């Protein structure tokens, strides 16, 4: 058994020796992993509140995707909202209903909980959002793993849908 241990040590030494160039990267990986538990602890701290991702308010998170800044006029652009309603009906109602949770959450009052950038990125870039955005990740789990479909809206269409959400 002792000799086995020696052999294993030797193997490890060989690996380190052979891959000297990778050593630094590994350390980086390590420190990254060290960060993770901190995050988990934070989550655990939040857990007792049991606020599901869909109810949580985070107006500073802009999400991941093409939209970095959206300026909302204090007045609703009704023409744009009408167009957005039309796009929403055609592209979104298979999974989203304005009056209730359906396959996915209702968009009603979404701007009380999310930044406009986050909403548009979720529409335009859902695949990356559910991989990288912590809220989107949690939402995917909360909604049974049902993926937010990328319906290939243009930015203009997504912006119109956002305007429509403001009217709900």
């Amino acid at each position, binding site marked *: 058994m002792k000799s086995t241990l020696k*052999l294993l040590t030797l193997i490890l030494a060989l*690996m380190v020796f*052979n891959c000297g160039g990778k050593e630094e990267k590994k350390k980086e990986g390590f420190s990254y992993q060290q960060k993770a538990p901190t995050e988990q602890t934070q989550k655990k701290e939040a857990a007792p509140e049991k606020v599901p991702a869909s109810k949580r308010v985070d107006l500073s998170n802009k999400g991941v995707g093409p939209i970095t800044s959206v300026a909302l006029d204090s007045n609703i652009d009704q023409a744009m909202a009408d167009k957005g309603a039309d796009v929403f009906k*055609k*592209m979104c109602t*298979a999974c989203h209903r304005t009056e209730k949770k359906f396959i996915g959450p209702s968009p009603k009052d979404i701007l009380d909980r999310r930044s406009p950038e986050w909403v548009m990125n979720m529409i335009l870039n859902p695949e990356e959002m559910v991989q990288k955005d912590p809220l989107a990740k949690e939402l995917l789990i909360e909604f049974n793993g*049902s*993926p937010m*479909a990328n*319906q290939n809206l243009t930015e203009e269409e997504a912006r119109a849908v956002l305007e429509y959400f403001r009217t709900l």
Partner: protein
Amino acid sequence: MKNTFKLMVGLLMAGIVMTSCNNQNSSNNKANGALSSSAAEKVYVAPGEHDEYYAFMSGGFSGNLTVYGLPSGRMFKEIPVFSQYPTNGYGYSEETKPMLETSFGFVPWDDSHHPDISQTNGELDGRWIFINGNNTPRIARISLKTFETEEIIEVPNSAGNHSSSFITENTEYVVAGTRFSVPVPQRDMPINEYKGNFKGALSFISVDPEHGHMDLKFQILMPGFNYDLSHPGRGKSHGWFFFTTYNSEEASTLLEVNASQNDKDFIAAINWKKIEEYVNNGGGTMMPTNYAHNVYDEHTHTATSTMKKEVRVVNPTDVPGAVYLLPTPKSPHGCDVDPSGEYIVGNGKLSANLTVHSFTKMLDAIENEKFDGDAYGIPILNFDDVLAGTVEQPGLGPLHTEFDDQGNAYTTFFISSEVVKWKLGSWEVIDRKPTYYSVGHLMIPGGNSRKPFGKYVVAMNKITKDRYLPTGPELEHSAQLYDISGEKMELLYDFPTHGEPHYAAAIPASIIKDKTQKIYKLAENQHPRKALSDSDAKIVRDGKNVHVYMTMIRSHFSPDNIEGIKVGDKVFFHITNLEQDFDVPHGFAMIGANNAELLIMPGQTRTLTWEPKQVGVWPFYCTDFCSALHQEMQGYIRVSPADSDIELSWSLGE
């Protein structure tokens, strides 16, 4: 036990030492010139990387067209063309059934042979690919944007549509020649009165330059030979078309012997521009006939079939100077024209030599009327006056020739099972390589155009035998890939092919890959029974016919609970896939359906017919694993007795 453990650890260690620095090793490999030229490296396309060429191989008796990558030999897709395809419902769905209509009714199978990619100025343009149905004569056009069959036209007065489907250098025409001559028009007559009475129809089908739509412009009614293969003139010979013939003996029985009597058969040279002009001036006669023209509309997602009732026929002797016969030894098979358009190679399959005719000499012989008699009024040119040269005894059983961009030709020899490289002009043999086994066609990307890409040749073999792991008596066919960039050919790779690829056509991937379609836009869906959003989902009863307007998206159908269906009803599921993202198809399978499944692309509408025969509650489900909740994508239909008074109702999530 301890020893074993030590041994295992030792082996593990050795393994780690050898593999742990993979990156370093592979970079060493790249620096090593000898290794970089290995056959394996030449065909290796790393995970996630793309092939250099698309190769489209005919399916032969599968009736379809398969898409491969070169040099990897990986198969990407089978495109259903002439055969029903339960894998996606082609030929089973109501939208695609009209594609397989013919004057003989619904014909769900064919034998597809010779794909040819559309050209502009004699170069591959990658808009469409055409392919012939050999058995029930048809020509199909497939979009290289959607990789779907868009159009099929039946060819009347034809039988064994083999010298097809080859296109002229600006895709003015797709040409179809008959292998079997038949009575034209068809009639009840004794078979042994074939000679002098049967006709061989050569069909010129015009192609609309914008949409690709085909129209049978005219047929030339030639003597009753067998028109075996053909190719267009190009460059200097653009405007002409060349067809090999055999059975100039006009035998109707035991052709194995009786069609091998004449020392020479012919290559028929057709000046189609001259005949086109004649036809445009009202020449030819309209003959009553019956043939189907089936067109698929990308926006309605639906095919329609129209029966055409007449065709313009041309008697070749009515157009002086349009048709000549070039004597060519011994039942020539392949008829191949080099990139310059000067040389016409007749591959006399029973001849020891390859015969090459000269287009320039042919024009000269015509001008100086160097004739050697005629066949039913069609001038036969004097053999020696049109001969450019002969490749002496290059092999046994020559079948087909393709060309590279360096003035070389490559001919397959079926009997001696090899590809032979020879030089145009000097007719000397440069190299030969064995094939495995009994090669038919070969293919160089662009090898039958003005601009070949002379990097690879693919040999398509008729016999597989021991090339792969045995799979019982029935085997897939085998193909070999050779590197032809050097003086000598180098065998790189072996790969199985589906059905029986006769001919193939390949094109640099860069010409088409960025133009391929990813989804069908819902906004452009004009299907009459589409359901574009959940609010369109509904069920309408029309007597015994029940139309279900259904939607699908990850991961549910709407509606997914249906009641009020009765035994004896005919249920039409009109299903629209509401996805608008690349590669999210959904499937639809209904228990007991007597047809197939539907595989529906994003934005597309498809209809499956189901005739419920048993009372009960019957499930349907999505067949294409679409999301983590794919297994939840299902629904139920309640089927009540025929005399039930249960009202039609439908719901989702209630």
